């Protein structure tokens, strides 16, 4: 319980300190807060590993009066992934977002916004209350939009405004569903809703909430806001936005469909969700192929990579939840969520280094970067392996599990999507890799400290290691998993 | 007796409100409308507050009613003056 509370309050207090303290004390305070929050997230994972899910009724009030928190394997694992990405971003941002480099405005705003985002991501991973999740989603939205606008450029303002427009529309759709849910059942608690008496308005409520969350997760066709918002932000902010922010709304979707209202998971609805995911995989990949700037390629790849996760709905949802392959599909989707987070953050941090070193992220300007800054080239290559789904990476484990479940359940179409997506990823990542590993280097880039280059490399190595050591996380994710009728393949 | 006062005073208040609205809608130029606005509905509000005061159950409620009226008078007076000036500047603009 202490670890859970620490993970929520430490980043909040650090954010307050970063706002109130004078300029020179801000970054140290933020880094201290980041270190402590990382420790709290790891601690929470250890506690969950040893004793099972951690449950806490806030203020001592049980639902439906109060709000309950519950850290299961899924929530704790996402918390650890978030902590690793946040810590890496904080270390990299020391170079990029210090007031002396980014100016006093961005150097002031980045740190508290990052910490607020961290606190709310942690809150989203453990909250069991649908309205509390609405408040959390709004907080994530406002922090994320602010992080997009932080660069101050005209295109960033327009991208931030478009992002806010979509995100608020998504929030209101979600809120409409929450209102209907409370009006029908007098509770907002996910566990209590699982045991509710079904009402005719439930399908509409679930549909509204799902639609809102899809907009926030940028699933095809609601993805139009994402690439420009993610690429217009400064690189450390892009890493947070792409690797972490969509995961919060995604997690709520999983909680709704697998925990709160699994009885409403009709085959047609599950098929629709997965079809949209499949289209995201293809369309996002094709658009990524057409980009000339590294950050835009990486941002469009997020659209595609998020699509895979939606294959979990027909493979593990509804009546399929009781089948033997469900645990594999479920775990594969979470593996995809985790490994994409680590790899995507690594890629954006590499892009940030290149922007500082070369002043540009056009592929034509990045030729031969691996010779000048070998660690960054290595990091980008490892992260690419994860996104392509090549062994032995975490992305491979994810796609392997999903594909096995697809074959086992006879839904071979999803296996085709997985294969096509992998090929597309190889194609769109080949271009930046070819540029970075080109033999000639055009201009001598600015020197980048090795300690900075090592940060994305660390994340990329972790994203691969997730596949090498997959048995521990596999077991971890089963802790508190809804409906664990059958254990894996 | 108290009820009778309420009927009379709130009724009177309504007359002023209606007159104020009619003035707002009918009078052609801005400044006579402004006059209708500040006089009509603030008197109306005063009479309604006074009428309702006869139904009040405590001194605190009476004080509150009086305060509301004073505040509304103050605000309306100020606002009418300022908006009239702003309207003058607005007329200079294309």
């Amino acid at each position, binding site marked *: *319980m202490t670890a859970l*509370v620490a993970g929520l309050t430490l980043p909040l207090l650090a954010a307050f300190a970063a*706002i*109130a303290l004078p300029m020179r004390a801000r970054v140290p305070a933020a880094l201290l807060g980041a270190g402590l929050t990382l420790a709290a997230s790891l601690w929470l994972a250890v506690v969950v590993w040893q004793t099972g899910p951690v449950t806490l009724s806030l*203020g001592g009030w049980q639902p439906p009066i109060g709000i309950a928190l519950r850290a299961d394997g899924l929530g704790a694992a996402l918390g650890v992934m978030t902590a690793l990405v946040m810590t890496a971003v904080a270390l990299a941002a020391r170079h990029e977002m210090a007031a002396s480099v980014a100016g006093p405005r961005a150097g002031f705003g980045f740190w508290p916004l990052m910490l607020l985002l961290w606190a709310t991501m942690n809150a989203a991973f453990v909250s069991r209350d649908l309205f509390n999740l609405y408040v959390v989603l709004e907080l994530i939205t406002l922090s994320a939009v602010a992080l997009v606008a932080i660069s101050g450029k005209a295109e960033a303002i327009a991208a931030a405004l478009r992002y806010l427009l979509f995100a608020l529309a998504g929030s209101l759709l979600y809120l409409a569903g929450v209102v*209907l849910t409370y009006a029908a059942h007098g509770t907002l608690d996910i566990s209590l809703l699982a045991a509710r*008496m079904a009402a005719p308005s439930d399908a*509409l409520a679930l549909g509204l909430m799902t639609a809102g969350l899809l907009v926030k997760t940028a699933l095809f066709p609601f993805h139009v806001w994402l690439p420009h918002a993610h690429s217009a932000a400064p690189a450390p902010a892009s890493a947070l936005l792409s690797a972490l922010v969509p995961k919060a709304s995604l997690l709520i979707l999983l909680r709704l469909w697998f925990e709160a209202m699994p009885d409403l998971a009709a085959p047609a609805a599950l098929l629709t969700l997965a079809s949209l995911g499949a289209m995201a995989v293809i369309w996002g990949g094709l658009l990524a192929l057409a980009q000339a700037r590294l950050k835009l390629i990486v941002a469009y790849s997020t659209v595609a990579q998020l699509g895979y996760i939606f294959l979990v709905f027909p493979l593990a949802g509804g009546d399929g939840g009781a089948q033997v392959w469900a645990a594999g599909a479920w775990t594969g989707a979470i593996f995809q969520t985790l490994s994409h987070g680590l790899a995507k953050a690594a890629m954006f941090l590499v892009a940030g280094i290149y922007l500082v070193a070369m002043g540009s992220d056009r592929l034509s300007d990045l030729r031969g970067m691996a010779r000048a800054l070998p660690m960054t080239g290595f990091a980008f290559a490892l992260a690419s392996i994860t996104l392509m789904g090549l062994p032995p990476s975490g992305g491979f484990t994810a796609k392997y599990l999903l594909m096995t479940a697809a074959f086992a359940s006879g839904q071979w179409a999803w296996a085709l999507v997985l294969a096509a997506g992998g090929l597309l990823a190889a194609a769109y990542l080949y271009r930046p890799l070819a540029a970075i590993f080109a033999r000639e280097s055009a201009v001598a880039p600015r020197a980048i400290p090795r300690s900075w280059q090592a940060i994305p490399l660390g994340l990329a190595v972790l994203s691969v290691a997730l596949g090498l050591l997959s048995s521990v996380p596999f077991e971890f994710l089963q802790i508190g998993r809804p409906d664990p009728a059958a254990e894996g393949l | 007796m108290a009820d009778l006062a309420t009927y009379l005073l709130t009724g009177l208040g309504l007359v002023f409100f209606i007159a104020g609205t009619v003035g707002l809608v009918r009078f052609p130029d801005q400044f006579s409308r402004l006059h209708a606005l500040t006089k009509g509905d603030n008197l109306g509000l005063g009479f309604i507050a006074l009428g309702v005061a006869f139904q009040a159950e405590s001194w605190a409620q009476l004080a509150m009613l009086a305060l509301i009226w004073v505040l509304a008078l103050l605000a309306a007076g100020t606002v009418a003056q300022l908006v009239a000036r702003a309207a003058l500047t607005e007329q200079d603009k294309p």
Partner: protein
Amino acid sequence: MSVALDITLCALVLGVGWATVAGHGVFRAVIFFITYGLLLAIVWARLGAYDVALAEAAISAGLTGVLLLAAHGRLRRLNASQEVPLHLNLPAAVVAVGIAAGLGWAWFALPAPTAPDLSQALPQSGVGNPVTAVLLNFRAWDTLLESVILLAALLGLWMLARDHAWDKPLGLPYHARPGGVLASFGRVLPPIGLIFGVYLVWAGADTTGGAFQGGTVLAAVCLVTIMAGVLHAPRVEQAAWRAALVLGPGVFVLSGIAGAVFAQGFLALPPALAKPAIVTIEAALTVSIAVTLVLLVIGPPDEGEQDA
């Protein structure tokens, strides 16, 4: 008779809502939106939700209105307040009617109401106003995050400043004719608003009121004094103001941790201490809310622009 009153009210609300959307011109939409907030406050009064009525009157009719008016003024000076000609958008109308019809259908499909039973919990909450009990005790986590949302919005707003204006005072440089009507109003209003705002926070424990409503009223009078040139907005780098921003959320978090250390758990308030704890948290929150709201409305550090 009371149904006739509600019908009149709903007709007005719908008419104003329609006018807000249908009418041409941004300024007209803004003014209709202000009157919309006012009518909605009356609707909440009719529903018996007095705390909501107060919040709606203070926030929707007051602060959001002045926010939109100021923004319209800015856009006009930037030549961006003009609107392209409007026409009927049939697909949008279909979607809108569909959503409204879906909600309308859901109303009749709702099962019998099942509100949580608060009769056991309320006496332990430390306050007599059930809405305050929910906000500051039962669902304190929501309220804490809500106060952080205000903060996040303000940080986001500040990020929109131009870099060279960053060390300038926040918002536009307001000025008024010394001794004029506006300046006098800016001096008369604060005492009234201050007393009323503090009263709302104090009374909120047991009757209509609360930290958000009180903070909004305080913010409103503060804004009037700033717009009347009586008070001046601070700069970002003035530490005391930034400390005021995080005071409320900070006290809230720390009291939550104290609950975890000394009482049953995070955000727990022992019934004996609940009332003083809630009043303390609300007082700190009110300060932060008021300052944050004022700064949210006046905007980032700015130099403004002259009328062409």
